[in-house]
């Protein structure tokens, strides 16, 4: 079984400052890793994904994340945030082996609150 931990429920940051949202996972098998963003009253939008290869992955809107296998982490970063980045961010994993389903296991989310 897999689980995802997002330790920070809320991260306040000033506009144009850098930000890191933390994600740690637990799994007995190899996993795919994802970050999704959810704006108010909307569904989830894929920011980026790690499947294999380079551990540094770049996504949309200037976000990037680094996969660290030894620390079982997949932290999300952005060098300079904008007011429009204010949203809920979810880290998720799915079983690489697949089997019958590639269901996503989500963390509890981190609210990124960008202040002017």
């Amino acid at each position, binding site marked *: 079984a897999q689980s*995802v931990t997002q330790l920070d429920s809320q991260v306040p940051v000033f506009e144009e400052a850098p930000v890191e949202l933390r994600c740690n996972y637990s799994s007995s098998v190899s996993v*795919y890793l*994802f970050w*999704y963003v959810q704006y108010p*009253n*909307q*569904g*989830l*939008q*894929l920011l980026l*994904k790690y*499947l294999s290869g380079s551990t540094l992955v770049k996504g949309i809107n200037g976000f990037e994340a680094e996969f660290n296998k030894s620390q079982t982490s997949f932290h999300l970063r952005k060098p300079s945030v904008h007011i429009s980045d204010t949203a809920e961010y*979810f880290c*998720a994993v*799915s*079983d*690489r082996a*697949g089997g*019958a*389903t*590639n*269901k*996503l*296991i*989500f*963390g*509890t*989310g981190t609210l990124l609150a960008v202040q002017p």
Partner: protein
Amino acid sequence: DAGVTQSPTHLIKTRGQHVTLRCSPISGHKSVSWYQQVLGQGPQFIFQYYEKEERGRGNFPDRFSARQFPNYSSELNVNALLLGDSALYLCASRTDGYDQPQHFGDGTRLSIL
């Protein structure tokens, strides 16, 4: 191309009633999954369907059921509604391949009175 579409966007029901939620996947996507997102939490997996067959089921009671149609659209049914069923219900579709990401609709907000 249109994204994943869900209907209705909002729904208010009372305890004990039944509800049907609908989802149309992205064109060409044969896999459809359903998730429940309770306020303040991450989405929880309910079902996955592929080619009209159930491929996975989360830890939800038998009051929850789903099906997929020949055009790959899907319905989620919930019987005997409880207050705890109040949530945002999200549908996601993906193309073939376990490494393919799931694309989500905007969800159906279900409120139980």
